């Protein structure tokens, strides 16, 4: 079996190496970009979760306070 003209193949291979360097460079950087995005999403999510937790607490406290206040305002006679 043969390979055609070894010189031509060699030139093609060489060109291929160079092209692939370019491609892999770009693809690697795109992957890095996505990596970053994923990581960013993860950290943001966990920060948002902790914020959400705090808001939850506040909301529930507020609810209780509202109930208390409403219990007071519906019976104004008690306070006069």
């Amino acid at each position, binding site marked *: 079996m043969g390979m055609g003209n070894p010189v031509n193949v*060699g030139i093609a291979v060489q060109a291929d*190496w160079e092209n692939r360097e370019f491609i892999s460079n770009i693809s690697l950087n795109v992957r890095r970009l996505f990596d970053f995005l994923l990581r960013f999403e993860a950290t943001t999510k966990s920060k948002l979760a902790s914020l959400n937790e705090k808001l939850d607490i506040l909301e529930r406290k507020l609810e209780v306070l509202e109930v208390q206040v409403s219990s007071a305002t519906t*019976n104004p006679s008690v306070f006069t």
Partner: protein
Amino acid sequence: MNIGSACTTLENLLFLSPMVVFFDFLDLKNSVEDILQVLIVFCVESLELDFALLFPERHTLLRVLPVLVVLATSSEKESESLYKRVKMNRLLNIFKNDPVIPAFPDLHLSPAAILKELSSYFQNFSSQTRLLSLPSPHEIPPRELQEYQRHYLILNHMGTIRAEHDDFSIRFASAMNQMIILKSSDGADNDWSRDIKGNMYDIVIEGFQLLSRWTGRIWEQCAWKFSRPCKEPPISDSQHSSTTFFDYEKVVRWNYTAEERRALLELIGYIKSIGLMMQRCDTLVSEALWETIHIEVQDFVQDKLDTMLRTTFRKKKDLSRILSDMRTLSADWMANTSKADPEQHSLHQETEEMRQSTFYPRPVAPTAAQIHCLQFLICELVSGGNLRKPGGLFGNSSSGIPVEDLKQLETFFYKLSFFLHILDYTATIGTLTDLGFLWFREFYLESSRVIQFPIECSLPWMLIENVTETQDAGLLESVTIPFDLYNDSAQHALTYLKQRFLYDEIEAEVDLCFDLLVEKLNEIIFTYYKSCAASTLLDSSFTYVCDDGEKYFIKPLRFDAIFKLRRVMVLGRTIDLRSLITQRMNKLFRENIDFLLERFENGDLCGVVELRQLLDILELTHQSISKFLELDSYSLMLSEMQENLSLVSYSSRISSQIWNEMQTDFLSNFILCNTTQRFVRSLKGIHHSSQRSSASTGKAHFYCGSYDLTMAYQGIAGLYRDFFGIPHMFAVVKLLGSRALPGIIRALLDHISSKITAMVPKITALQEALPKSIGLLSFDGGIAGCQKIIHEILTWEAKSEVKNEVLHDLKEIGSALYWMSLLDIVLRQIDTTQFMQSAPWLGLVPGNDGQVKHAYPDSTPFTTLLSAATNAVASSPACPNPSSFLVMAKQAEAASLLYKSNLNSGSVLEYALAFTSAALDRHYNKWSATPKTGFIDITTSKDFYRVFSGLQYSYLEESINYPSTKQEMLGDSVAWAGCTIMYLLGQQQHFELFDFSYQFLNVAEVENATVSIYQPSDRNKSPNFLQGYEGILEAMRKARRLNNHVFSMLRARCPLEDKIACAIKPSGAPLHRMKFTNTVSAFETLPQRAT
């Protein structure tokens, strides 16, 4: 086994096709047998070398080999030539080393079984007795079985695995750090960077091998377990004993011991963590990996092959053509020049040696095609196109290639096959860490003819359950790892098997598992912290002395890692485990409070101490969990469950329950013992609580966590279950707080007042039955005569019912009053404690006369301190905004004002007495006859004291005559009520003078004295005339002592104001409107009520 064989045969063909193609176009004249032989050689050599194999390939080779062997021995001649190339022992060794081979998730194969199965189709093979005599997994003799067991069970390798894991993770991390340093330092010198990258490459390979070995172990253990089902499932559950077991249960559910599950989970954890660690740095290392591979390939192609071309293959035209083909196909001649400086570039073009030394690698890996071509060419090079060549692939020297060249070629050949895995970094890690097979059970589902097995049979859930059941501190943190298994299997079902229904099954199971896990986890966390709290609150000196005190100590667990889980990935969903736990924890606390309240509501008032204990434990639990989780505040939860969130509500579940109990049970059924200061349940009192539903026996974590602690606390609470005293009052005060307590007090006072009102007509009825005037008892008849007279006066036989009712009313009033006095004692104590704590802050110092004095008239030390601090902060330039400090100083002033005004709180008892007095005033006319003459009428029967005196006498008499009937029902509170009423009506002195019992005692005393004077000789003997009266006399003395005690208490706590009365002067003239004061006898030194 038929299914298995068919499947593998199919797989064989698929797997081997590239290999066949490889060898096929070497030379078309080669027969199928030759190709099969080459394949066998390849398999055997690869398996024996075990270098470049990841576990999936290894398993495939193992599955393929028996089939190949059968196919290759199609005739005598062929089999001879095969065994010439590959010794029979090598094959036997391989088959023996792996008696079971994983094929599919829930299916295993064994070489022995394959050989036996196929021998019936291939006649020629049936003569191969050595191969056919291999034992199947279930036929393995016991001695070898032990060895296999040791090999297959992960449990036995855990020590090594742990060490490998620790060592590898450290080295990987350090390699990563170096990579990061390298990245941050630009223009680093070449050698150093190549070193680091090479190191990284080595570590990655090591990691792959490690992961492959570990995951392979899990596969193999699974296969082993499948091949050796558990003989007899444990018949512990009665419900299971009758039912038959699924085969799957035998091979999975009962086939893993707790230790094995633990080891399995640990290993899964290692695999997943290492896999994740490697996956994370994917983009960071890939450049280094490409570069290193590039160097390897270029080094071989450009340098080594060059040397070989010039030496070994100089004479061999056809072989050197292969070498130069290899170079043409994969050499990257320009790599060295692409990044070098132009000057260097021109310099290094000159000589080849120079070029080698400054070789600048390109971060580009060869393509898969290049790698395959290189592999193929190397193969062709060493075999020379002759498949019939004896010996192995690289093992023969007949081709005339020197050994060291062969060695180089062989190493590179196997390296090439590994390059593919490295280049496919993410996918390789994915394959190596894919443990989804642990879930699949389709084969067993089919054979058992059921739709699905119960969740207990599912291996991932078994692992989770193992953690939650053993509560192993080391495993708790990996409790969510089994969900990765579900993720893997779901991924496998969707992307590889492409079966929606499988995914649905998995999803359903995951949903269920996750819910169960969260619930169990909550329970564990709650129980743990509750046990800790209970153990802390237990008297430590007591547990220290206790023989088995260790059982009250809780071994520490850590949940920090679980509390930090904000994003758990389950089937593509992100779940905030922490918030789920918080949510459920809030719910759990509420449920617990509700449970405790309900329990209290189902018991009697004496349970209040236990309620307080349990609530205290719960509060401490809340405190310790709040350090990690954002829980609702305890007081809010408590008031929510007590239903007194409203600002205008001054009652609560506890307070209404307490009042309810007092009204229906306590006041009527409890009797007072004045000496012990306790109320106890009267024997005749109906035990309400026995009729109530006591079925609500809650879970252990609603009490004190661990069983031992619950028992200990129940022991403590048991001490307080049968009486009501000071400890109960403390609990009542603590539980009700200052908000609900006034409600109870008011209700109790109203109760007293209504009882008094209810008593009025009954008293009148009794009064009517008395003679109009009652004189002093005469001393003439002695005690017997006295008794007769009294009997004549008290003609209440017809009204015994009214009498009893009055006695009961009096008892309730007395109990209520005594309850108030207990409350007063407790409140005093609490006030004093608070005073002691606040006094130094308020600047209170003891004055000369025992009174409290303010050391600083205008300010308190507390306000001074804070205002000084505020001034200092405000004047300092470093603090631009001191407003919060100003607020703080203001608040301090407010606080000290509040505390100051709280200092002199009144006495509850005094208030109660005043209230009772006011209530009595309404009936004053009926119970206290105003003398018409202005003189005190000593013979009247209209006064209350006469009635009470009669009641007391008859009560005492009855208690002597019919012991254990009346007295137990009434106790000491009757005296409390009677004396209080008499005292408040101003009839104390009348009572003390004219009470029948007192007079009776006087008569007895006089008689005793007279008799002892006249009969001194009989002094030592009991005077016989008193015989029959000792009992009643003793009872009367006791009653007198009790009455005196009550009166002196009353004089101390509620001194009577001056009263106007008439008196008779010694001369006999009446003196109108004279003031008389009550003399305070025993309690003269007690502080008087402020007027």
